[in-house]
């Protein structure tokens, strides 16, 4: 394999993690936007979880009203720029473009979206302002996509908003968990700054909410609370040997990579365990970091993997080898990992050697945290139960959104949930 050389500096890292959807130039945007048919009740718009009026913003780009296009996007989705690059557009808006039905390439909606949003962010064009102060306060736990979207929407409605974030940066997995070739940290944080500068919500970083006392305090201080807490760390499931050196959780590995780039430790022979999108990302990233051999091992068949097809193709394109029907039974090694023992459905066992294992077998649930909140009902998958119209939980003071209610989905789902919850809070407090 070794298509990628191990990056020794930031420039080499950026070269290995070249952006998959680079920013369009004005000429590209002009020609691409000219192709839009302006479909009636457009399928792309209906496929977007936030319902962005896509034909309108594309027409606006084409007529030179790029700021208007950005406004159309942000009116529907507060993370308009991040979603343009990180959304799985191939299965959402672009996947539903009617051109697909005649084998004509669909509109590059994600890139057009970024063309518009990046333009206003770069020029720091303020388009929103807080609504008149209504004297009410909302606390938001978690500055991920759902929390940020909820904060922005609440501010336009005149609420004072305090976000409590456990980490030191906003946007959650957008900055900590998305593959670096999908979006850069700078781009994510620029949008975060752009929004906060306009709408003026407070974010309290490194302020994890973990105790009953904190919860009680928040309940006393705020009129409503939004839970945008996402999921937890990688779930370790008592696989024998998973405590050995060289065994990493995928979420933690990707966070390390997003924060430390080429300085992130990656072995020479890497085995990634899992079949979801995070597994694809971790495998692809290991390959791009110069590992000489990256194997993606999944217990079921290729078809049964939870990952999008395009994500698997992307990993294979980076040099990742897929091994299916391989359930890990033990991580081998003497102190440090030296291999993984697998078992096939037939009962046959085999060992693959490696010097690094990345477990992408799901994130832990936040059940113990949720138990601190009175009357908060969860479903059988430890997801907060909400009214889908308002995102209000069974404890009326609490609203929720994002991975905490859907078990792990896209940034765009979080963005929609947060906005919906803000409207729900407003309706409830009025």
């Amino acid at each position: 394999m070794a298509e990628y050389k191990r990056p020794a500096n930031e420039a080499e890292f950026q070269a290995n993690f070249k952006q998959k959807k680079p920013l369009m130039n004005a000429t590209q945007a002009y020609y691409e936007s000219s192709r839009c048919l302006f479909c009636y009740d457009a399928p792309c718009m209906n496929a977007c979880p936030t319902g962005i009026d896509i034909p309108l913003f594309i027409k606006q780009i084409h007529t030179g009203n790029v700021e208007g296009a950005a406004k159309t996007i942000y009116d529907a989705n507060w993370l308009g720029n991040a979603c343009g690059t990180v959304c799985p557009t191939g299965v959402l808006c672009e996947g539903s473009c009617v051109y697909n039905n005649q084998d004509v390439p669909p509109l590059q909606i994600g890139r057009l979206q970024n063309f518009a949003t990046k333009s206003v962010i770069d020029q720091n064009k303020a388009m929103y302002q807080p609504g008149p102060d209504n004297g009410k306060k909302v606390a938001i736990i978690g500055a991920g996509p759902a929390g940020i979207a909820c904060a922005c929407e609440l501010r336009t409605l005149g609420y004072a908003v305090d976000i409590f974030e456990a980490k030191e940066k906003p946007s959650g997995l957008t900055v900590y968990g998305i593959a670096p070739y999908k979006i850069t940290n700078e781009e994510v944080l620029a949008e975060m700054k752009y929004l906060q500068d306009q709408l003026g919500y407070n974010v309290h970083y490194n302020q994890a909410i973990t105790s009953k006392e904190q919860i009680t305090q928040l309940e006393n201080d705020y009129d409503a609370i939004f839970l945008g807490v996402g999921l937890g760390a990688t779930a370790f499931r008592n696989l024998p040997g998973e405590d050995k050196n060289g065994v990493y959780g995928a979420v933690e590995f990707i966070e390390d990579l997003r924060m430390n780039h080429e300085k992130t430790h990656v072995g020479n022979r890497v085995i990634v365990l899992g079949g979801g999108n995070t597994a694809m990302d971790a495998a692809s990233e290991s390959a791009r970091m110069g590992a000489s051999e990256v194997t993606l091992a999944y217990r079921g068949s290729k078809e049964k993997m939870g990952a999008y097809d395009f994500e698997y193709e992307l990993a294979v394109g980076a040099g990742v080898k897929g091994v299916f029907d391989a359930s890990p039974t033990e991580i081998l090694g003497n102190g440090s990992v030296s291999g993984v023992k697998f078992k096939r459905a037939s009962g046959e066992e085999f060992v693959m050697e490696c010097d690094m294992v990345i477990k992408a077998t799901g994130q832990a649930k936040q059940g113990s945290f949720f138990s601190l909140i009175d009357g908060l009902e969860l479903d059988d998958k430890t997801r907060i139960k909400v009214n889908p119209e308002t995102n209000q939980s069974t404890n009326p003071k609490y609203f929720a959104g994002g991975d905490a209610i859907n078990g792990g989905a896209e940034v765009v789902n979080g963005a929609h949930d947060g906005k919906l919850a803000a409207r729900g809070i407003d309706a409830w407090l009025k």
Partner: protein
Amino acid sequence: MADLSINFAGIKAPNPFWLASAPPTNSGYQIMKAYEAGWGGAVWKTLGMPTINVSSRYGATNYRDTRMAGFSNIELISDRPLEDNLREMREVTKRFPNHATIASLMVDTRQEWNDIIKMVEDAGAAGIELNFGCPHGMCERGMGSAVGQDPVVLKTIVEWVMDAASIPVITKLSPNISHITDPGMAAVEAKTDAISLINTVKSIVGIDLDTYAPYPVVDGKGTNGGYCGPAVKPIALHMLKELKQHPQIKDTPVSGIGGIETWRDVVEYILLGATSVQVCTAAMHYGFGIVREMEAGLRKFMDERGYQTIYDFAGKALPNVTEWKHLNLEYSVKAKINEDKCVGCDLCYIACDDGAHQAIALPQEGQGRIPSIIEENCVGCNLCSLVCPVEGCITMERKDDGSKHRTWDERTQADNIPNTWNDDRAGGKGHYVPEPALALENKRKDRSKW
């Protein structure tokens, strides 16, 4: 194989593709380059009264990603010394004696006309074209379209020219007039050898939103330009037909001009009676090489239809261009959607519902996006088939059996036309139209706003 050569009012050329008098024919260099590229003739950029040109001369109408769907200019006639032009013309006509090198002229007095005609004849011009068309600049000095818009003056000048000229004369008409047959008749009465049309259409292509001045902007100001390019073709075709159906004008050869870019354009002009065509905008946009596509396409068309020369099909569409009152009112077409091709953009639905006759229905919620025609509401207007982005997806199918033929004219003669406000014989009587209040229940969904 088809023979593309023509004899246009005595001007011979290897093919009917000529460059119109315009910037591409500003010099001998350009014209010889064009002949090498395959053009059969060129009308030299108008020679005549000395001029000065401005900087910033062209403007364009861009449509979606198409540049120069319409093109406008405020350039005047040649600003080069006459002597330079004539020297180059002599060289061109000597090197390309079989091509149609035509001198476009625009002067003022009879003496000037006599003098300049003698000069271009000496330079070997195969013919003369009279520029009575320029709608900008020169018309302010009483020339160009100022002449084309005044049939009496036009006739007088053509008579002067016919007296003086020993080579064929083409009178170029301006479209900036209500009835093109008026200047057409004046030219014919003055015994012009041929007519060419159209010159450019008086226009403002747009306003610069920063300077609030029309394009092309000259130091904060602008003036009307002459509009040409693909956008003007329909206007030109109609004027060509007007001349070619006029009993006193129809036998005068016409060189067609206006938005010609492809072989299809050329064939359409010839079908309406043009026997040479002139091109400017396409050459300015794509260079002289664009003629390759025209020639290849025209040859293929002629070979397929068995035409030896362009005269075999010139004017063949003219009998089918008639007055509205002679159209068959019994003819009936209705739209048909090919479901296998439909991509579900639903543009036909909204075009029909908002812009036509509410004759297209969307499927029930959850049943996909392929719309269906409500035949009893469909008036056969074609709109859906025109907006459909898929090749061959919506077709208009004939529904009457072809046995009946009844025109407005025939019904008038039979005293069978609607003639009171609420006459039962009116066409729309009883045709389905939704109740107005239904509009309030049929709003566009906007999911971003809930």
